[in-house]
């Protein structure tokens, strides 16, 4: 990765951390705002509960005390690793507090009441989230370190979900009602995003290699792909319905293999078309970046064109191609949400259902996994790209 991160020596202005002041302010406002929102069912307006009301007794007092101390600690300038621990610790405390609060607020045996985190909870999460994010970016973790941190956070989330701590929260109530379809749509979502990427690599990589030395075709292909890339997703999904419906109706056997105007087929095709441009253009950039001397040396050693491609050019172009895969995968995970509009499935189903029913919990049930998936893919593939490019430089 080109490093724009010129090491910044922070101007030392005293023991006060400016970002810490912001964090402390968010924590202060958050502690005085409603922590959870209780609704007797999905539709009625809710009543707000502060942290002390949601967690009566010693637990609530302890939580307020610990969160205040953590917020105040952020103001003082300390080591980044220490700040990271404070931030993550406070976030964990918040996760436990909202879960226990929701369990306590739910009347025994009740299935229709909905308890959602309220403004105060989100402000606290934002405050400590900023603290943790800032310390991570200051720590300049190694690629493996970043993946390790991601795995640790994911494991903690999985543990919380498995323990049933959050099972009274409204989002998980929605999940419990449709656990089967959730995992089915999750599978569809991943299949759409990854399937189109694999197809794009299978087609795009040879296409890039083929047009690389052919200047004229190369200009036309990249211009055409750029235009397609510009076409908005909802429009492309829509435009593909008509030709696919025609193919399904008129080509024998097409309908039998699942081709149809509406559904997964146009979604997969649209995502594939979007993925093609980054793959082809980064293949070209990667091949362009192969030093002339390397090519000469390979020729001098008597390598055939094929050997030169596999043993010299492709390994040198690998970081650039991997970067394209990272861009495409993250982009596809987001775009696959829109597939739901044309009956293609995926997490978008919950998002658009939720929007239709003004049920925010349902929107979250679709949006949160999508964001988590995209974010994890970005962190992991960034680490891979960095490791591969570093090996190159040695």
């Amino acid at each position, binding site marked *: 990765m080109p490093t724009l991160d010129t090491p910044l020596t922070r101007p030392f202005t005293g023991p006060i951390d400016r970002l810490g002041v912001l964090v402390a302010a968010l924590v202060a406002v958050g502690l005085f705002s409603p922590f959870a929102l209780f609704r007797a069912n999905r539709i009625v307006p809710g009543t707000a509960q502060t942290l002390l009301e949601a967690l009566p007794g010693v637990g609530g007092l302890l939580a307020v005390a610990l969160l205040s101390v953590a917020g105040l600690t952020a103001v003082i300038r300390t080591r980044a690793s220490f700040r990271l621990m404070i931030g993550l610790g406070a976030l964990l405390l918040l996760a436990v507090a909202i879960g226990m609060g929701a369990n306590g607020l739910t009347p025994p045996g009740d299935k229709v009441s909905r308890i959602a985190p309220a403004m105060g909870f989100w402000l606290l999460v934002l405050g400590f989230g900023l603290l943790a994010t800032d310390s991570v*970016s200051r720590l300049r973790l190694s690629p493996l370190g970043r993946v390790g941190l991601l795995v640790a956070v994911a494991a903690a989330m999985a543990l919380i979900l498995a323990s049933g701590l959050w099972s009274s929260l409204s989002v998980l109530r929605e999940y419990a009602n449709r656990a089967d379809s959730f995992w089915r749509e999750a599978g569809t979502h991943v299949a759409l995003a990854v399937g189109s990427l694999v197809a794009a690599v299978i087609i795009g990589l040879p296409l890039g290699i083929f047009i690389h030395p052919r200047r004229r075709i190369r200009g036309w292909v990249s211009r055409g792909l750029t235009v397609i890339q510009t076409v908005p997703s909802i429009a492309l999904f829509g*435009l593909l319905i008509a030709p696919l419906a025609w193919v399904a109706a008129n080509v024998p056997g097409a309908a039998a293999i699942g081709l149809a105007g509406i559904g997964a087929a146009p979604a997969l095709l649209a995502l594939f078309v979007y993925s093609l441009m980054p793959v082809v253009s980064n293949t070209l950039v990667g091949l362009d970046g192969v030093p002339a001397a390397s090519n000469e040396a390979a020729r001098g050693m008597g390598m055939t064109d094929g050997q030169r491609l596999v043993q010299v050019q492709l390994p040198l172009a690998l970081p650039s191609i991997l970067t394209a895969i990272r861009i495409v995968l993250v982009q596809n995970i987001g775009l696959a949400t829109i597939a739901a509009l044309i009956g293609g499935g995926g997490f978008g189903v919950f998002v658009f259902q939720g929007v239709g029913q003004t049920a925010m919990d349902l929107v979250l049930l679709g949006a949160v996994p999508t964001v988590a998936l995209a974010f994890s893919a970005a962190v992991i593939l960034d680490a891979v790209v960095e490791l591969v490019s570093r090996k190159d430089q040695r």
Partner: protein
Amino acid sequence: MKLGLVFRIGTIMLLAVFLLQPDWFAFVFAPMTKNGQPAIYVQNSLLSLTISHLLIVFAATLAASAVAIGLAIAVTRPIGREFLPLSRTIANAGQTFPPVAVLALAVPVLGFGTEPTLLALFLYGLLPIFENALTGLTTVPPQVEEAARGMGMTDRERLWQVELPLALPLILAGVRISAVIAIATAAIGSTVAASTLGEAIIAGLINSNLAFVAQGALVISALAILIHDGIGALERRVGRHLIQG
């Protein structure tokens, strides 16, 4: 190059004629309808939908540009340096956020209609502009900075006469990316009842009338390509101007 110009003018003319007299094109779309469905979307005129689509995109992109460039300047000055690593991480992570999610999550705060769409477009539009402005402002060659300092320029003069002009092509590229994303996201805004061209597409999907879907999709695509092209041309002009001095 000449062919490109013909293509551009042709697209603009065709788009203008279609928006003013959509009925003239009914024969193109009629084969896509079934059982005597109407061939042209008339619930709202395509022209008014196009205008409100463009207004939403313009307002959101303008606001996002102003705020993003302001933020990028702030975190590269000594007073905001402490926020630079954090803002860079947030900009990176924020781009993994799908625009649909931003749109859907803005509804509970702002209700249905144009407002959540504007907010989502604005928030999502910030990231590419901010990231590009940041790259532009932090990669001014050190020799140039030194020369400017040696000429006795103040910090403010350096910002206005050296750093911002050098970062301008990159900033424009960010604005281009934002505007194109905004056109796409505005279309999805119709799922939360914003008045945009997405309305025709969604009406077509609900009534399974492919003619409506195609109309909305074609106009949106043409707009996106023209805007992408226009800002791209501006970038090249600014870049050339910089090289020639």
